[in-house]
Each structure stands twice: as structure tokens, then as C-alpha cells.
């Protein structure tokens, strides 16, 4: 008998099939990993398990008993707890409240007993073995502490299954390892953990069994010993790792971008790097390594506090986005939905916003003909599929949305393109297309700096890869020499 067993689950939203005949089984006290690319149906499956979505077809058994309809409250009463990516905590409330409030709510209490609440919170925190000021407001805490609060809160309800949705996204490496020891501790106490992730290293490190989804379908469910990296990648993406690498045709003499001892107080220091025309340089490192901050400094979002930046051999001051654009630097940001796109606004406006001044005549009058032709050009050359450029950009799929962001920047005719997580949340087909576009651009002489977590993406698209740790560059290698072992070695040796 297993804790929870789902078989033949299907679920569709407005005609789009999110889950097709999916089965998963979680045993008591196991750490199970649910893996798959973004958009493969992981979140939908979690929501089915926690009673948020009712499946269209399929059977659900909890403790061997068949369950027809599962509401969120039922799920909680069965001991199923979900820790969402954003933790669902309240920055303006105290630690004690955040931990104890929903227990109190579940018991349908009307009054607040602060002493009891603090006691409950204290016990919960002891379970995960940490100490926090119970009266502190949560907004003053670090991301890792917030997550611990979310975990402690989940433990309050006699939890038997804790589902963690991409729990390591916002953690530094140190925090990740302490999270893992907590997870192992919970397992020892007989708790079942469903760990949802798309990061391979973590999947191998923490889990005992792995279930992989692809395009809403079950691919495989195996013990971790039976899998290796290549198999896992194949199952997740449906493609064999191709042994093709990006190489530059001829070495340009003057680099497009060169930094000397670049630093930003509290974020990174002594960064010296080069990006030449035709190069695709990968930049990787854990969250908090300073890679995003470096990119933002190069783009003028947060100007560097020390060191020099050279663009095509000339020293330049980049203090604002406008400076960066004037130097023909483009930046595709990390968070597409909040930093890259204007979801409610039209595709057309999204594509031309960075070049409105170039598309305007004297007196800042917008030239509509030029706007239309620019939009048509980029829709065509990037193969964006849309009913009409006048529609809001949020009607597009993830892949097309990312192409719109790309189009916005390519319209500025950049010589240096900085990409931060260029294919996060993009389906596999579009991912390949976007990679091809990037390679083609580099071949035409653009310099590309690509920040990514996605190892295959780095390996097969970058001719060089730089590794950052704790705000410094700690390693550099050619793309084809890149390996998991090398990465682990860099992370362990340099500290």
C-alpha cells in the first residue's frame, strides 16, 4: 500500500490538455522527485494531488482508499501539504503568526491566543531545528528563512506528504544543502516528500525515486540508481544530447565587451572578462553568485562601483539603461513576465518600445509606417505566431512571448546581446528555435553573453563558459569541455 496513488489522470483546460493519462505513486517515507521541463504539467499534477484541480479522468487512492472528490481541505486533512514557490507567507506578519495562523484557521477559531500561537510556532521551528525570533516581522528575513517558515507551517498539520514546488529556485548553495539535510531529517521521521524540480544535480542528490513528465504525459518512473544524467535529459526533453558544439569561425581581434576589475559593492568584484564578435559566452553560477547583478551592471541597471568597461576597445561609462542602449547593448532579463513584457499591451508596442525614439521623426512624432514595418519584419524573421500584432502579448505562448522580448532587443541592432535565462519556461520546440536564432546572430558578428542554469544549453551553444561564485569569476573553459564534474569541482574547491 502506498501513501498516495494516482493512475490514469487526465486534465485539460479550455481544450488544452495539461495532463494525459498520468500515473504516480508515492510510498511512505520516500523522497520522490517529480521532474520535467517547464510547462510539462508538473504544477497541474501537484494541484490535482492537493485538491485544487479535480481531474477529468483517472483514479486517486490515498492510503489505498479510493477517493472520488478531493477538496483542498480534504487534502490538508489527509496530511497533504504544498509549499508553493512563493511560499504563500505574509511579509507584514510575525514569524509566529505565519507558522500558526492557518492551523488556527483550520480549527475555525475566532480569537487569537498569542501565547499558544508562539508555543506552536516554537515547536514547529524546533522540528526543523532552527531558531528565529518569533516576534520578528517576516519581511526582515532572508529567503531561506522564509522557506523554513513555510516548511514549519506545513509540518503543523500532522503532515504526511509535503510537496515542494521548485524549492531551491531562490536559494544560495549553502542554503540548498541545509534544506536538503532538513528534507532528509523529515524522511527519517517517516514523512514523504515530493520534490518538484527541473535541476538535474539536485534531482540526483536528494531523491530516491524519480517520476518524469513530458508534455503532460508520463515518461518514466524509476529508482534513481537506474538513471543517469544522459537518460534523464533524454526523458525530460525527448531528445538525445547532440554532440554539436558552437565554435567561432575566426577570432576577432578587438573584443566587443571587455571589463577590467569590475565591481559592484556587495554584489561582485574583480570581474575581468571579454566577449568578442561572433562569440557566445556562457555565464553560470548558483543563485546569489552575482551573475545577474553583473549582467545588470553591464546594462546600466545598477552601475558598477569600481573597474572599467570597454566597448570595442574604448572605455565607456554605463550608468543608465539609456547609456547601455547608446552603446548598442541589449539585455533579455531573467523574469520575462515582470521585467521583459508588458502583458496587457499589444505585441506591436512590446516590440518597438525600446526603439520608439529611433522610429520617431522630429518633435518626437511617432512614424506609424516605420513602426508597422519594423514589427512585420521581426514577426517574420523570428517566426512569431500571432493572430494580429494588435493583440495583447499575454495571448501568446511562452515561446512566442520570449521571441517578442528578443525582437524588442534585436530591433535596437545591438552589438552585444546579454541573455539571462533565455529559454526558461519555453517549450522544447521553441527552445531549439531560439538557440538557432542566437547562434545565427553570433555568426553574423554579434557578441552574446548568455546566463543560464541549463547545462546542456550552455554546453551546446557557448564556445566559452565562465563560472561565478560568491561574486567572483572562478573558472573558464571551452563549451565542449564543460562537464558536470568540472562544475562540481569548481563549486567545491574554490571557497
Amino acid at each position: 500500500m502506498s501513501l498516495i496513488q494516482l493512475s490514469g489522470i487526465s486534465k485539460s483546460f479550455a481544450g488544452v490538455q495539461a495532463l494525459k493519462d498520468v500515473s504516480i505513486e508515492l510510498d511512505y517515507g520516500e523522497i520522490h522527485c517529480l521532474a520535467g521541463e517547464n510547462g510539462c504539467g508538473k504544477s497541474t499534477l501537484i494541484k490535482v494531488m492537493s485538491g485544487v484541480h479535480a481531474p477529468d479522468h483517472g483514479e486517486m487512492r490515498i492510503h489505498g482508499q479510493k477517493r472520488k472528490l478531493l477538496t483542498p481541505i480534504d487534502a490538508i486533512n489527509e496530511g497533504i501539504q504544498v509549499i508553493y514557490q512563493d511560499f504563500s507567507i505574509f511579509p507584514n506578519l510575525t514569524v509566529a503568526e505565519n507558522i500558526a495562523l492557518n492551523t488556527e484557521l483550520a480549527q475555525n477559531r475566532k480569537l487569537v491566543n498569542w501565547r499558544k500561537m508562539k508555543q506552536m510556532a516554537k515547536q514547529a521551528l524546533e522540528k526543523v531545528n532552527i531558531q528565529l525570533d518569533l516576534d520578528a516581522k517576516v519581511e526582515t528575513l532572508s529567503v531561506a528563512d522564509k522557506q523554513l517558515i513555510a516548511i514549519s507551517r506545513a509540518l503543523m498539520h500532522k503532515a504526511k506528504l509535503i510537496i515542494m514546488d521548485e524549492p531551491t529556485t531562490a536559494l544560495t548553495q549553502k542554503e540548498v544543502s541545509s534544506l536538503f539535510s532538513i528534507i532528509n531529517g523529515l524522511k527519517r521521521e517517516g514523512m514523504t516528500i515530493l520534490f518538484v524540480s527541473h535541476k538535474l544535480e539536485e534531482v540526483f542528490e536528494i531523491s530516491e525515486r524519480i517520476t518524469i513528465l513530458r508534455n503532460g504525459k508520463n515518461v518514466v518512473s524509476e529508482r534513481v540508481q537506474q538513471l543517469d544524467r544522459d537518460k534523464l535529459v533524454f526523458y525530460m526533453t525527448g531528445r538525445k544530447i547532440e554532440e554539436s558544439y558552437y565554435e567561432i569561425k575566426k577570432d576577432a581581434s578587438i573584443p566587443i565587451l571587455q571589463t577590467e576589475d569590475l565591481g559592484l559593492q556587495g554584489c561582485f568584484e574583480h570581474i575581468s572578462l571579454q566577449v568578442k564578435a561572433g562569440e557566445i559566452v556562457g555565464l553560470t553560477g548558483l543563485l546569489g553568485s552575482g551573475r545577474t547583478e553583473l549582467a545588470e551592471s553591464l546594462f546600466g541597471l545598477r552601475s558598477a562601483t569600481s573597474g572599467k568597461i570597454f566597448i570595442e576597445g574604448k572605455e565607456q561609462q554605463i550608468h543608465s539603461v539609456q547609456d547601455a542602449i547608446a552603446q548598442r547593448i541589449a539585455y533579455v532579463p531573467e523574469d520575462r513576465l515582470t521585467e521583459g513584457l508588458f502583458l496587457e499591451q499589444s505585441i506591436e508596442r512590446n516590440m518597438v518600445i525600446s526603439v520608439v525614439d529611433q522610429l520617431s521623426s522630429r518633435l518626437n512624432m511617432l512614424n506609424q509606417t516605420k513602426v508597422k514595418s519594423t514589427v512585420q519584419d521581426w514577426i517574420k524573421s523570428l517566426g512569431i505566431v500571432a493572430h494580429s500584432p494588435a493583440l495583447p502579448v499575454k495571448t501568446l505562448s511562452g515561446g512566442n512571448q520570449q521571441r517578442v522580448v528578443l525582437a524588442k532587443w534585436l530591433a535596437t541592432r545591438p552589438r552585444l546581446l546579454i541573455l539571462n535565462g533565455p529559454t526558461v519556461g519555453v517549450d522544447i520546440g521553441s527552445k531549439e528555435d531560439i538557440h538557432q536564432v542566437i547562434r545565427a546572430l553570433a555568426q553574423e558578428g554579434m557578441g552574446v553573453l548568455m546566463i543560464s542554469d541549463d547545462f546542456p544549453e550552455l554546453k551546446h551553444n557557448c564556445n566559452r563558459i565562465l563560472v561565478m561564485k560568491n561574486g567572483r569569476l572562478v573558472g573558464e573553459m571551452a563549451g565542449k569541455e564543460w562537464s558536470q564534474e568540472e562544475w562540481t569541482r569548481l563549486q567545491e574547491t574554490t571557497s
Partner: protein
Amino acid sequence: MKKVMQTSEFYVAIVVLALFLVIGSQSSAFFTITNLFDLIRSGIVPGIFVMCAMLVIISGGIDVSFPAIATFSMFCSTKILHSMHYDGPVLVAFLLSGLIGLCLGLINAVFISLFRLPTLIVTLGTSSMFSGFLLTFVGSSQISDLPKPLLTFSKEQIFKFTNDSGITVGLPVAVLVSLGVIVLVALLLRYTMMGRGIYALGGDAVSAQRIGFSPIRIQFFIYGFVGLMAGVAGMIHTTMMRNSNPVDLLGTELLIIAAVVLGGTRITGGHGTVLGSLLGLLLVITIQNSLILLGIPSYWQRFVIGALILIGTGVAAYQVKRSIMKRKSIVS
């Protein structure tokens, strides 16, 4: 101690204290019972209003309709009682007014929580609607011969003192009602799940729903309760003025909101305390009443209050900016 010094209440308290000392040193009339009672008296109705505005702002909204609700409730109930020559317990007058306020507040709640419309716009609309309806269909001329129970209530005083010049000063009993409302709100916010739900809703509405709060229920409660309190405040206003004027309270909302914000309540929701809001109100009332004791002509009032709002919110905004910068540091 350190914790106390980090709160915004602390800073407001310092400013109020400094203002008191400055005015007191310039004018001997300031620290007299008569003047202090004047200050308290002018804070009775605004004290309740401040609670109304604060509750809504903590929940992440903004309400400008409470003066209209107060006026509507007090005038309608006075008119009803007046027409039937009412002569029973005064409590009924307050209940009636509160009940009318409650209904009006629930109208706000319907638009805000069921139709999900922005709170500012909804309350602007209802406020115009309520006062328009009142003045068109109920009446536009004031009622000066109040029903007897209201008159008796208005004459009752507590804390009577006879000052040096032989004049007896005291506070109207209504001050106890205000005090009651303030204590009630403080208890509500601190010791009930509803109160914590209001904070939770203002902090993160999506999460509040996820952990089991019902935003619709909370919003209905808030706007209904605010309507009720406004109705009671309106009736107090009538007894204190000894007449019921259907255009009296309109237009006070922005100053009340200013007082709440000066007291450290964040306009973005989730933060705010009863103490802070009362201190903010004290600041505004002191400026309104006592600036003249400093030899500053009364026509400087608006200017000073405007400047205070800008300085107060400016300092708060600056602090937020700085703490964000501090937290972004990564390299260990």
C-alpha cells in the same frame, strides 16, 4: 527599547511631543485643562473616522466614503426620530444611525468584493451617490430642534472641572463612545482572527486565500463595520453640534486619511496601528487648533498640514528605499 525606536509611532510621538513643547513654551494657554479638553473634544468624531480609514487602508484599500455615510446615517435617523417625536432611550438613536451606516457600508462591500472594483473609485462613487441621495430625497436643511433624548445626551458631561476663571469645563459623554470604538478596534485587530485576516489580506491577498481566509468575507466585514462606525460617529457629531446638518462632515475624508498615513500606516496595505493613527490624528488636530497660539495665522493650517504629509511620507519612503538597498547585498 531598540524595537520601540524603530517603529514609526515613536517618530510621530516625538514630533507631537516637540510640537506640544514648542507651543506650550510660546503660549501659556496651551497647557490648560480648557485647551486640552478642546483638543480632545475636537478629536471625538475624527477619532472614530481615523479608525475607519485605518482599517480599510490596512486591508489594502482606501475609503473616502465614510463622511458621506456618517452624514447620511445621522441625518436620516435624526429625521426619522424627529418626525415621530421620539422620546425613548438615546441608545436607539445610535443603533438606528449605526444600522443605516452598516447598510451603506455593505453597498461598498458589494462593489468592492463581488465586482472586484478599485476601492478608491468605488467609494468616490458611492460617496457622491449617498450625499446626493440624502440632499435630494431626504432633505437639505438642517434639523435644529433635536429629539429630546439626543439633547439630554448632548448636555451630559464627564470630568467636570472649574477652571481659574470660574468656568466649568467638561467632556461630552460621547468621548466614552469614541474611546469604546477605539478599544474595540484595537482588540479586534490584535486578538481576533478577523483582525489578523485584515492584516493578512493587506499583506498578500493571494496567500491569504490560500491559507484559508476568505477575502470576500473579510471585505464585507470591513466595509460593513466601517459603515457602522461611521453611522455612530455621525450621531455623535449631531449631538455635539446640537443640530443635524446634511452637509456638515463632507470633505473631511482626505484630512483623516492624511492623519492615518502620518501615523505610519502604509498606503500599500498590511501595516498600521491604532496608536500610530491616533498620534497622527493628534498631530493634525493640534496643528488645526493650536497653531494660532504660536502666532501663526490660521490660514497657514492647510499649508502646514500639506507639508507635514509630504515630509512624513517622504521620510517613510526614503527609509523603505534604504532598507531595500541594504538587503540586496550578496557577497559575504
